[in-house]
């Protein structure tokens, strides 16, 4: 489904990585590892189409993602370093805004239920700025619970999560892969998933 061929990433004068190739079939996960500054985030941004690679191509179902455009973006869920939350909006409003943006508007009742399942149900009405880092992460990751995207690309999703959160995320990833989804994840910690994630080491 997702295939990367000879990807190269250049930042200024420095080549972060080159010759990165992999293919990911339905139901498969990829765990991207590497030291700080090895280009993990850059690789993920290339995979979702936020940044173009210096060399190489990313293909989805055999077609370059550049030419697929909106058809590819419909299949992708991206959760980057920053949580993508508006500090002045409540967790509930943030989730609903994200859902509308993903082309799948949800009603208030469903948004509450999603937040409850993500473990921040009691904080639904609080502005995002008053949430703790872990609660903000859970609110951002709540999108995993209603998205129809087939490819999840998560950058350090377990950062700031407590043990319960890590377990919850692992269960969500397991369900997604079992249903034929794909996931590309960076993490310095083990993911605690039951499904197998192929390792990809950058800068080795």
């Amino acid at each position, binding site marked *: 489904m997702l295939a990367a061929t000879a990807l190269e990433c250049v930042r200024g004068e420095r080549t972060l990585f080159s010759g990165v190739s992999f293919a990911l079939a339905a139901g498969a996960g990829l765990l991207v590892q590497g030291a700080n500054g090895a280009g993990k985030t850059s690789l993920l941004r290339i995979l979702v189409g*936020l940044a173009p690679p210096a060399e190489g191509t990313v293909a989805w179902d055999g077609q370059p993602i550049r030419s697929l455009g909106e058809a590819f973006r419909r299949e992708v869920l*991206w959760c980057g370093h920053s*949580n*993508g939350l*508006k500090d002045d909006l409540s967790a509930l409003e943030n989730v609903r805004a994200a859902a509308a*943006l*993903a082309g799948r508007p949800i009603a208030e009742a469903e948004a509450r239920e999603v937040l409850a399942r993500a473990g921040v149900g009691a904080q639904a009405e609080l*502005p995002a700025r008053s949430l703790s880092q872990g609660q903000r992460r859970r609110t951002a990751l709540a999108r995993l619970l209603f998205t129809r995207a087939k490819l999840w690309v998560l950058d350090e999703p377990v950062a700031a999560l407590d043990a319960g959160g890590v377990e919850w995320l692992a269960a969500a990833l397991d369900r997604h892969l079992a249903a034929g989804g794909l996931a590309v994840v960076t993490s310095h910690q083990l993911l605690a998933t039951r499904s197998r994630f192929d390792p990809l080491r950058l800068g080795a």
Partner: protein
Amino acid sequence: MSAAAAALGVLRRDLLLALRRKSDALAPVFFFVIVASLFPLGIGPEPELLRRIGPGVLWVGALLATMLALARLFAADYEDGTLEQLALSPEPFVLLAAAKVAAHWLVSGLPLIVAAPVLALQYGLPADTIAVLVASLLLGTPVLSLVGAIGAALTLGVRGGGLLVALIVLPLYVPALVFGAGAVDANLAGTGAVAHLSLLGACLVIAAFFAPWAIMAALRIALE
């Protein structure tokens, strides 16, 4: 259908954010009121002179006021990561960018148009001239928002972007200023404002058609 829903969602979200930050949202109209009120005080009670400079002062005041919120237009979304989510939305990015500009105009353009008639009284402008002023601002402030948003998108993530926005955008504001203030002047002089307003309308059509694409392209580059 869902594209319209997503664009409306962005518009509603930005309006809600403006509502939560009333002091930021009201800054442009306060600025406009202060500038337009200081000129009569500084120049003194000379009705002829005030009427002469009124259209220009009001238009320049409105123009500068719309620039106040430009620097934060995309910067806030860029910093908290929501701009990435906008760019990766399956809905057309160009529509979402247009929705952000629409929100900017509703928050920092529309209140100026409401305040303008009251401020125009300080300059002794007659009623039909005030009507032309309101019409010219109705056509002109959306142009300012659209063109300004291009500048804001181009300077995204650049240090000292605030000053750079002004340098990029001010020359592009000149046609709107010339036609807008010109329309009010022409009405005062009795030559009719239709020609100026038509040109301003043409500016709006062109800006509304091309600006969202330029904004989208600039935002994509900024995100790379």
